[in-house]
């Protein structure tokens, strides 16, 4: 009797992680801070008056104001990309039930690269919209391939098998990418800027191309969270709870690929954001995906924006592309995860 009322009680008042509200407040604060930093800091710092002028007076024509206006689109773009990569990482980890899953580690980014490069070289694609569709197709095919290889044999998709399958596929595809580029120097020149991963080239038209994919991806991700929570208990348990695991995996993976593919198409391969933000949030809030997935978006946006600012400061007077910065922050996290006994005993 007692336990039944307990059960009802917890149904009516779902358990909220201990620090949830604190985390929201902190995240929000950090988000505002990172946006301001992204607008103000850079190879040319901007004063407060110039910032206000750039933000609120459309026809202010001081140098600082136009710098700020240029940085607005960049900041918005990096927030969106970070959110997309954060959710994408969280979804991939949930779908594969595997702590080391991130678009860059699984080779999905390289798949997107290969398709975009083939498109540039053979079909003369050149708009952001075409880039996105090619990148999505490449990301999708690669994701299925890598997961297929990684989940063969005993024990399903263990972290080591998935990472190795991702690394091998990545290596194979990058050979093809270079083979396509070598005879075509114009592709090479375009590609080397895209290849490092940067939010610097953002403009409003690429952002508006990006938004529909972001919204659809996020919606699909949110729809599947409760079922993904059940999946975390194992396939059999999830089926017992009435989850159709096949369709669930399909939908969640589709969302993950939409988000990371669209980001990769426009910003280039930016690695480790998904890994970083998801693990940070899980560390603080625990394993409930209903909190992890939305909060990973916040964390991803903050981390990517701050990394971009750091890159601009370190690389001044030029800039250090954000893809390089995230690789340097994220790879140690991969190493730390690899050192955890649970992963390496597999």
């Amino acid at each position, binding site marked *: 009797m007692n336990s039944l009322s307990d059960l009802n009680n917890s149904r009516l008042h779902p358990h909220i992680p201990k620090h949830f509200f604190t985390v929201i407040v902190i995240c929000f604060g950090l988000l505002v801070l990172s946006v301001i930093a992204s607008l103000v800091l850079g190879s040319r710092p901007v004063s407060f008056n110039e910032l206000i002028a750039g933000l609120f007076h459309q026809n202010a024509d001081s140098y600082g104001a136009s710098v700020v206006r240029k940085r607005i689109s960049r900041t918005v773009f990096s927030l969106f990309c970070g959110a997309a990569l954060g959710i994408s990482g969280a979804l991939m980890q949930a779908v594969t039930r595997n702590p080391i899953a991130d678009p860059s580690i699984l080779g999905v980014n390289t798949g997107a690269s290969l398709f975009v490069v083939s498109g540039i070289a053979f079909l003369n694609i050149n708009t952001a919209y075409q880039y996105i569709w090619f990148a999505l197709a490449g990301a999708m095919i690669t994701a299925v391939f890598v997961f297929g290889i990684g989940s063969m044999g005993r*024990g399903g998709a263990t972290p080591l098998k998935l990472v190795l399958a991702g690394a091998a596929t990545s290596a194979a595809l990058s050979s093809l990418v270079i083979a396509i580029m070598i005879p075509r120097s114009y592709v090479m*020149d375009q590609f080397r800027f895209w290849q490092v991963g940067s939010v610097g080239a953002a403009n409003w038209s690429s952002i508006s191309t990006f938004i529909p994919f972001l919204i659809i991806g996020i919606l699909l991700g949110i729809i599947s969270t409760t079922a993904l929570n059940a999946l975390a208990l194992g396939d059999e348990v999830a089926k017992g709870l009435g989850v159709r695991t096949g369709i669930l995996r399909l939908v969640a993976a589709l969302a993950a690929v939409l988000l990371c593919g669209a980001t990769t198409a426009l910003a280039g391969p930016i690695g480790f954001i998904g890994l970083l933000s998801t693990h940070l949030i899980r560390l603080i809030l625990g394993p409930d995906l209903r909190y992890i997935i939305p909060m990973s978006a916040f964390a991803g946006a903050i981390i990517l924006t701050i990394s971009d600012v750091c890159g601009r400061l370190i690389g001044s007077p030029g800039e250090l592309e954000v893809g390089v910065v995230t690789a340097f922050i994220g*790879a140690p996290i991969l190493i730390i995860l*690899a050192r955890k006994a649970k992963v390496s005993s597999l």
Partner: protein
Amino acid sequence: MKSKSIEFIMEGRRQRRRRWIIVTSSLTAFLIIVCCAMLLLGNTIYPVIDVIRALLGEQISGVSFAINTIRLPRMLAGLFAGFAFGIGGNTFQTMLRNPLANPNVIGITTGSSAAAVFCIVILHTSDTIVSVASVGAGLATVVFIYLFSKGKSFSIGRLILVGIGIQAMLNALISYILLVGAQQDLPAALRWLSGSLNGSQMHELPSLIITVLVFAPIIILLGKNLSILELGEQSATSLGVNTDKTRIVLILCSVCIIALATAITGPIAFVAFLSGPIAKRLVGVGFSNIIPAGLVGANLVLASDLIGQFAFEVRYPVGIITGIIGAPYLIYLLIRMNRKGEL
């Protein structure tokens, strides 16, 4: 009865030795053919007599330049780098008892490559410093991987994951250096993405050749211990092998030759990974496959370079060809290991 069984064992040993000799000599023969092809083929095909006379130092207009300045350095660079990658990769794979644990996959070549790119594109240093830096970086990468993957017990899975992590950082560094580098350095820079013999020059070669000639024999001499190490730590110790010392010497030697080869040709994709397993398949078990692995490596590099130069309308650097051969094999190997549950 007793003599019969000994006779039986001896017979098996003789057969394996015969197989080893046949494999090694046919690999050598093939290597000689490929080397000659490297010298003879090109935009212009010169008569054999002229090529030999040019090699002997006679001045023949046109021929001497093409042979001594372009084709000979290219051939030598491919020969020695391929041998180095083959032997070095095989040593790692045998020592760690896993074909995946090779310098390509765990990022040692990426370490050397990053250092070499940095010295060439940013610092514009001399060849000697490039070689020293790439050896240093290769060793540093090994030390890092070792330190980070050291836990309560040794785990090959952890080692590979740590290697992939470190590799991701180094790759980011390389792409950044390539981006800030000047436009005219770009073709040279491609070498550092995939490995190429283009533009190998005579004055770069002595360091590689000397290192290979010094360190490869050490590895070959330690070959017996290496085969025993393959049985596992405990068996090796009880068979009287000083495991730590052997391991350190072997790692030092292989990293040195791999790093120097990388400094000159770039990380030619997958040669260090492919040579060992191919040699093992050819030689079979029971006989050291160090020399065959080196020969396979050299053959792979030179044959792929010939394919890259002449098989297509465009000239592809050797790393693209080895990459396209090697990557599917890596995937195949993964699939096979997954099926058997070895991972």
